[in-house]
């Protein structure tokens, strides 16, 4: 059944989306610099959207990966039992907050804040998007990395301590090293979540489908474009097909990321 659904999803995306490639060659679709779907003639180049997604994702990664891994190490190795339970509950809570609520909060608190410090005309920028998304990636990264760290055999720690290493040396050089595959998987899954995230990103990045020159400009991501424009398209039209084609691109990207994460998870289990 699950295979059927995966196949069906892909089949329907292809069915609705492929027709755009009759009119726009794939290379133009992926690498042309202009996304003007409703001008005449329309231009369907998703490069600005891809760059938007990459920029926001990279920003979120830079923020969330070190902090996430550090928190995972703290929770798994250092925190006393009670603190650990509280922290884990807090992180589960973060995972449970709906993305539209996080987007809303990002919009009303982070947006004005960023506008203020950098003296911008709008606070809804790639940077705000990155910070918001970093928080959405955090629960995934922390919980999976924490699992990987906890799974490191006890003897490793005991052996290191017995050799006279401090607790920190053990944690950093032995435990973290042994948990690497699981950490890679955690990071990949976190990034997968960020790339696929739609509502929060649509609300905080400012939604301008232009190639940005800095992280303090509004951008628009692949996901946000689909969500924002699908309502205005004619069913079966070119624009409609182009949005489904973006869906295909997203599907393939997440498929690859999850595939890689899965490989590392299997490595971690061994």
């Amino acid at each position, binding site marked *: 059944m699950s295979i059927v659904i995966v196949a069906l999803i892909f089949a329907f995306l292809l069915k609705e989306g492929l027709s755009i490639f009759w009119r726009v060659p794939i290379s133009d679709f992926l690498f042309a610099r202009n996304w003007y779907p409703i001008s005449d003639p329309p231009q369907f180049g998703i490069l600005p959207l891809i760059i938007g997604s990459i920029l926001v994702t990279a920003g979120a990664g830079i923020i969330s990966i070190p902090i996430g891994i550090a928190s995972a190490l703290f929770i798994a190795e*250092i925190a006393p039992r009670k603190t650990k339970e509280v*922290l884990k509950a807090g992180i589960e809570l973060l995972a449970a907050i709906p993305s*539209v*609520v996080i987007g*809303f909060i990002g919009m009303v608190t982070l947006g004005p804040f960023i506008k203020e410090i950098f003296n911008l005309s709008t606070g809804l920028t790639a940077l705000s998007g990155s910070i918001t998304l970093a928080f959405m990636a955090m629960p995934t990264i922390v919980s999976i990395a924490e699992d990987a760290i906890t799974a490191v055999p006890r003897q490793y720690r005991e052996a290191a301590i017995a050799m006279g290493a401090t607790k920190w040396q053990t944690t950093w050089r032995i435990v973290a090293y042994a948990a690497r595959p699981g950490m890679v998987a955690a990071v990949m899954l976190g990034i*997968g979540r960020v790339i*696929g995230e739609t509502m929060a990103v649509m609300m905080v990045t400012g939604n301008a489908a232009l190639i940005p020159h800095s992280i303090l400009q509004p951008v628009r991501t692949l996901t946000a474009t689909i969500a924002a424009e699908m*309502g205005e398209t004619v069913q079966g039209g070119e624009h409609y097909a182009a949005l489904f084609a973006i869906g295909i691109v997203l*599907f393939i990207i997440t498929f690859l990321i*999850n595939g890689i994460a899965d490989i590392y998870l299997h490595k971690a289990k061994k």
Partner: protein
Amino acid sequence: MNVQLEQKIAFSILFLCTLLVVVPVLIILVIIFVKGASALSLNFLFEMPTSGMTAGGIFPAILGTLYLVLGAILFAVPLGVLSAIYLVEYSRDNALSRIVKLAIVNLAGVPSVVYGLFGLGIFVLFLGFGASILSGSLTLGIMILPVIITSSREALESVPQSFRIVSLSLGASKWQTIRHSVLPHALPGILTGTILGLGRAAGETAPILFTVAAFYLPKLPQSVFDQTMALPYHLYVISTQVPGIPENVRYGTALVLLMLVLILNLAAIILRYQFRKRKKW
């Protein structure tokens, strides 16, 4: 450098990082509770929106979300539990089951907006359900399927093998064994997964954007083929699409949505805790 000092510094940094993750969560919750509480009242919960959604209540959105979540569960739970039973009890560890597991992992990673596209393609257009509660529920159902399959699988796998062997040795058929000796013990775990799925379905916006959600409807939906308003979409609409919505209405809507989702998650956590305490093997 002194190793002890190094350790102190390192631990402090790790601790600060952890605070960086957890403290904002508290801040978010506090902001929403403080600013949203003033909007909460029985009228807000149980009345129709009035004067262009700037006043009145959010009842249609709450009701719509309940309908959608219910529909998603009706579809996803039987299917998910049966898949899990097949995977754990019947399938062998071969190429096919490996592919199935990979497919489930990938389903879990598909972006929610892509589920929305899929729902639009298959339910709304291909099967002709139109933008309706039915299409939205099915789309959400497919989205939470991996959550339900994964947690049901874990629940089934945690039932000790000896339970099955004893039952089979007493002459019970394979299905009787599963039905009477395995499922009852896996039920709390399955329930936990279901509630987590519920919470996820209640909070998602992107999959319902094109399959069911209505900007504003003057009356409540009458059948499964009607469109409906829904809480997450309503919050999106009033915070980005419509200017001039009073702040406390927006925070109030966020608060209601947040409470709904958090209560579901809390229920799942409590259930899991109780289950762990009761477990005797």
